[in-house]
Every structure is written in C-alpha cells, then in structure tokens.
C-alpha cells in the first residue's frame, strides 16, 4: 500500500509494539498528540499510556531515562522533536549509550533507538534545519541511519529496533510527505503517487549497513543519503550525465564494498550532503574513496554540501545544495 514516510514510521512503531511488549515509545508531544510530525499517531490509544507517553521538555531526560530503561531490559524508541534539539542529550548519547556495552564488559547493554527529524527545506532557520549526522558517526559504539523513502524508513526503523545496540535514526523531514528534489519552487509529487511510496503492510526489516544503488550509471559515482538522494537525481538529470547514485542509507556501519565497486567502475566521485562541509561525513567518504580507489580516480573527489555557516532562514535556498549546484559540480568533475 502507499504510505508517506510519516505513515511508514508510524506503521513500523505499531508493528514493533504489537510484536514485542518491551518496545516503549516516548518523547515530547509523542503520546496523546502523536508527535508534532504525527509519527507516533494513535500508538498511545492502542498500546496504553505506559508504552507510549509524553515527556517533560528535556532531551537529556528523554535519552538518559531511555538508557536506564534499556539497561533494565526494555527497548525504548524515543523521539527528539528536531535533531537541532539533541545537544542537551549529547553527553548521554556519547558517554553513556554508545559505550555502555564496551565499558561494562558486556554486563549491561543499551538497545535503544533515538529518532529525530533532520535537515532543511522547511524555512526552519538554524534551529530546525540542521544535519548533525557526523556528530554521531564520529562516536564509537553508535550506528547512524538515514532513510530516503517510505519503504526504507519502515524497514530500517524495524531493523534499528531489532538491533542490540544504540541506533541514531535521522529522518529527513523535507521528505516526510514526498520526494523533494531541491526544486522548492515546484510542487512535489506526494508519496501516495510515487512508486517509492509502495510499502509492504507486513513486518520486514531492511538490513543496517547496506547501501542501495538507486540509479545505475557509468561516468561518475554520487555518494549521498537522505533528502539529497532525490536532489542528486535531479542534478544528474539536469546535467545530462550518466551518474551512478548510491543511497548510503546507513552511515555507520558503512557499506564500503558498494562504494568501492562503484567508484572503481566510474573513476569519479561526487559526495552530496546537506550538512556543513568541514569535518562532515563527506570528509570521511572522501578519505575512504581516495585511499581505496586512488589508482582508479580520474578526477579529484568533490563534495557538494551546505556552507560552513549556521543554517539561514530567508536565504535557505542559497544555502541548500540544490540540483543546480550538484549539476555544476558534476560537469566540473567530468571536465577533468
């Protein structure tokens, strides 16, 4: 059936909660109201207030208490209302959730999913638009996931819930309702009218650590994830370049095999992400590609990213690395 990413995420919660009564869901406005983006709609009514509930406005409290619950033996799936709000919980994520298994010699573990809408495109300014993925990929002990369509959102979230370790689940909020390709001045096709909106009703998982080639090509490899998967496709189409586009889906663990095989085939690599450039995840991808594919490369590895500035409000579309910038960089790489 056709679902939006929001419905796919709600459906994943629903199936996980029905299957395992250890799964508990909480966060700000998550219970009665069903979340500001509606990703937990109806869960409190169906599973009761002790399995899906509202919390005080304290990200530290949400994640810290979830770690305790996970150590107790439950499977918390918590929502941070916007990824931009996660920082008060950062110590709990980095020093606690990520290291509990290791530091206790396996005595305690932390099976926990922390969901958060990320990325721009909604005129959210600097506090509702950030893409903080590299703050998590840099931390040993965490897995970091970002889907780009409803089918993967459901399968990856269910895989994250099954995972025995803490998983950061970033939801590109601009994709919630349709495959936004960066053309902010055009209407988007809703997921309901898009093939990628086809989501199986049953329980299924999409394995963590596996990338997907969303478009095969021969001239250049584009490594991307989240909203930029769709922007990259638009950029490649507009540049008229036969690009192979890889949706990484999981950043850690990273599917290096798929990446290496593709770049060795095409000889060129462009990395596209919304987050700021310096020390962004693209830097890691770039280092990986140059060290493992150096003798296959015909052009320097190129990054198309957000600028190294705070995310602006009114100037959003000059900040956002849209299809025009992707196309321009693709052409540049092809000219080398």
């Amino acid at each position, binding site marked *: 059936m056709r679902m939006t990413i929001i419905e796919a995420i709600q459906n994943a919660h629903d199936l996980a909660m029905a299957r395992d009564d*250890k799964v508990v869901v909480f966060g700000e406005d998550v219970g009665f109201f069903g979340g500001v983006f509606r990703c937990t709609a109806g869960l409190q009514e169906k599973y009761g207030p002790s399995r899906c509930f509202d919390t005080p406005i304290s990200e530290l*409290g949400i994640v810290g208490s979830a770690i305790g619950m996970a150590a*107790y033996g439950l499977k918390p799936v918590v929502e941070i209302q916007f990824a931009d709000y996660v920082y008060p919980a950062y110590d709990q994520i980095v020093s606690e959730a990520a290291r509990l*298994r290791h*530091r206790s*010699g396996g*005595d305690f*573990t932390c099976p926990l999913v922390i969901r958060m809408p990320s990325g721009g495109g909604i005129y959210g300014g600097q506090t509702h638009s950030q893409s903080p993925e590299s703050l998590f990929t840099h931390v040993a002990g965490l897995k970091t996931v970002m889907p780009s369509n409803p089918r993967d959102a459901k399968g990856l979230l269910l895989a994250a819930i099954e995972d025995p*370790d803490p998983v950061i689940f970033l939801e590109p909020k601009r994709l919630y309702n349709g495959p936004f390709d960066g053309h902010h001045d055009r209407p988007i096709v809703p997921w309901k009218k898009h093939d990628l909106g086809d989501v199986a009703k049953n329980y299924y998982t999409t394995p963590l650590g596996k990338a997907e080639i969303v478009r095969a090509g021969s001239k250049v490899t584009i490594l991307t994830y989240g909203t930029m998967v769709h922007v990259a496709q638009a950029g490649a189409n507009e540049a008229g370049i036969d690009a192979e586009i890889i949706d990484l889906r999981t950043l850690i663990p*990273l599917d290096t095999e798929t990446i290496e095989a593709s770049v060795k085939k095409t000889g060129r690599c462009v990395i596209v992400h919304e987050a700021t450039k310096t020390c962004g995840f693209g830097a890691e991808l770039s280092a990986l590609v140059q060290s493992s594919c150096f003798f296959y490369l015909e052009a320097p590895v190129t990054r198309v990213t957000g600028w190294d500035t705070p995310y602006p409000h009114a100037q959003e579309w000059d900040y956002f690395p849209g299809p025009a910038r992707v196309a321009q960089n693709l052409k540049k790489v092809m000219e080398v």
Partner: protein
Amino acid sequence: MHKDPQPLSLHVPEPGCRPGDAPDFSDFIIPKAGEARKPALDASAQSMRDMAFSIVRVLNKDGKAVGPWVENLSVDQLKSGLRHMMLLRAFDARMLIAQRQGKTSFYMQSLGEEAVSCAFRMTLKDGDMNFPTYRQSGLLIAGGYPMQMMMNQIYSNAEDPLKGRQMPILYSAKDYGYFSISGNLGTQYIQAVGWAMGSAIAGDTKIAAAWIGDGSTSASDFHASMVFASAYHAPVVLNVVNNQWAISTFQGMARGEVATFAARGHGFGIPSLRVDGNDYLAVHAVAKWAADRARAGLGPTLIEHVTYRAGGHSTSDDPSSYRAKGEGHAWPLGDPIERLKTHLIMLGAWSEERQTQAETEIMDEVREAQKAAEAIGTLTSGKSSSSRDIFEEVYAVMPPHLVKQRKEAGY
C-alpha cells in the same frame, strides 16, 4: 527620587576555613539523636518539609540508639554492618598503598563515608539496581561481591571483568545490583530514574537507587532526574551524598550557601530528608523507609546523606592544599566505624579486644584477596588484559571497519 546606579559586584562562595585556618563547624547545626520524627510511609512532601532542614540521627553520643527511627536490628545485623565498613576501610587502605606502589594508575577511597553505602545496601533486595558514583564501593562489599574481583578490575589484570577498559574502581556488577560507573559525573542519576520507570512499565517489583555527590547536583542531569522522577512517580531512591567537598570546592558552592541539598526536592514535590551519614543505624532506617515507599508505589524519595570525605578526592589530589588542617578530626558527626563499634560495646555484644582481633582478621582477608589478584597480575606486571579486547564489544557484532582496524593493530 533618582539615585546614581551603584556598581555591582559578584559574590563567589568560599568556605569558612581554608589551609592556615582553624577548622570551624560552628555554623553546622546538629539536632540531637532521636529528635527527628518518623513520618508515615505515605507522607506528602509538604507535610515533612522540615525534615529537609533537620537531620535524622539514631545513635547518640553514648552509642545508644534512640528515637522513632530505631529499627531494632539484630546483633548479627549490627556486627555484619561493622564488618562491612571495616572491610571497606581495609580494602581502601590496601589499594591506596597498591596505587602508591605503582600497581595501578589511580584510586579513590570511601574513608569516613563507609556507613552510607554499607547500610544502604542492606535495605535492597535481589534484583534492585544501584546507579552509583565512585564512592559507593560499600554497595559491593556489603552486597557480597568478591573482593578479588574488585582488585582484578583495579589492576586491569587478565581476570578483570571489564577487560582493562575502565579506570580503577569504575566497576560494573549487574548480578550484584551495581550499574556500570561512567566516570563523568551525574549521568547515572537520570538512568536510575529510567531504570525505575522501566520496572514500573514492566509491572515488576524492583526498585532503583540513584547516587550523586553534593558537587554534581549542579549538573543538569540532577534537575532532569528530579523532573522525571516526580512526573512519573518512579520507584527510585534519590541519594545525594554530601561529603562536604567536591575535590577542592566546598559544598556551599553547589547549593548557593542557602537551603540544603534535601530542600532541592521540595520544588518537585518529592519527600526529602537529611540523615546523619556517619550513623549506620540512621542511614539504614532512612534507606529502608525510602525503599519501602518506592516498593509501595509511593514514588521517589530524596535523601541527603550528611557525611565527611575524610580522605582526598582521589590519589591525584592533596587535601591539605585546600582544606584546613585537622578538619576531619573536627567533623562533628564522628567516625562511622567508631560509632557502630561503641553501640555494639554498649549493647554488651562487642569489645575493644574483639575489635582489634577483627581488624587483624579483616586485614588478613583483604591481603589474601590481594595476593590472589596479584598472582594473576597488576597494571604493570603479570597477566594483563588483552589488547584484542579494545575492539570487542564496541558493538554486539563487530562491524567490518573494526575487523579491519583490529587486523591492522595486529590482533
């Protein structure tokens, strides 16, 4: 009437005495033993507000147990309490020396605070969970955790259950109700609340105990914990161990020199009280009361244990450079071991001779454990934990990039 604005000045809290001064606790008001009332188990925070400003004390200066908090513990219970505290003190003494001898990198002792963790532990049941700081090793000693295992951890030897990954004394012992210690302060407090919420969600009967020091109550983790514990009526005992010093910073800094740490509970509607942390009987009674409240579904209790850190913060600081000389001796609540010993002697169940004998036996027991641990290895000799273990258990299943790095490291 218009006045010129006066220049403002910043107030920075400072203790009454520092090195060079005579120790002075004259501002410290100590109620008489037996004076504090014992509220009903379901008393509201409002109805016992005064107890956050007083101190529950049971043992008087003659070693007699007095007042409504007397529980009539058996002589055997009292003797094992004394033994636990003596074991902890002897253990600390040996490990402090071991650190000075270079057998480990670091150590932190519980000197002077033994009653807090040792008495508290006896009120918990199997399956309950402590979220301790580094100064509650008595929870392990009184809980029957093998001393040699603690030493294996301190030495990071081949039998260290934490596989050499953690600094000394950051133990983890799930089966003994002891959560893995992190090392960055305060984080465990909200986790204890979450663990307790988990128990309630699961319809379990287990409770959690959260631990934090006076200094770390300043951290936002403490505030979040209080909000969550009060909002969800979590079955948790919230302990603040006020041992007067956060390394070199006096406790007045964290509480703004006003009110008490217990009074922090009032804004959250959490029943809060202070207890004489050097009085084994008082700690036991108050802990039991709070644990019973949690078990009865009456929610959290905040306990401020008023005690004194008789030693340094760790092996890395010298308290004589920031505390008045003799402050420990001037501490008006005395020594927890001395006080329980006096009580047992007063009951006719103990004597100075037996105390001396017990000290020898206990030290032998600790030495025995130490010998066994050192036969395996210390940080600098013998069989140490494997470097292969650096890469294990970062995740349940080792991801490809770690497999690659482990090979690169040569393991």
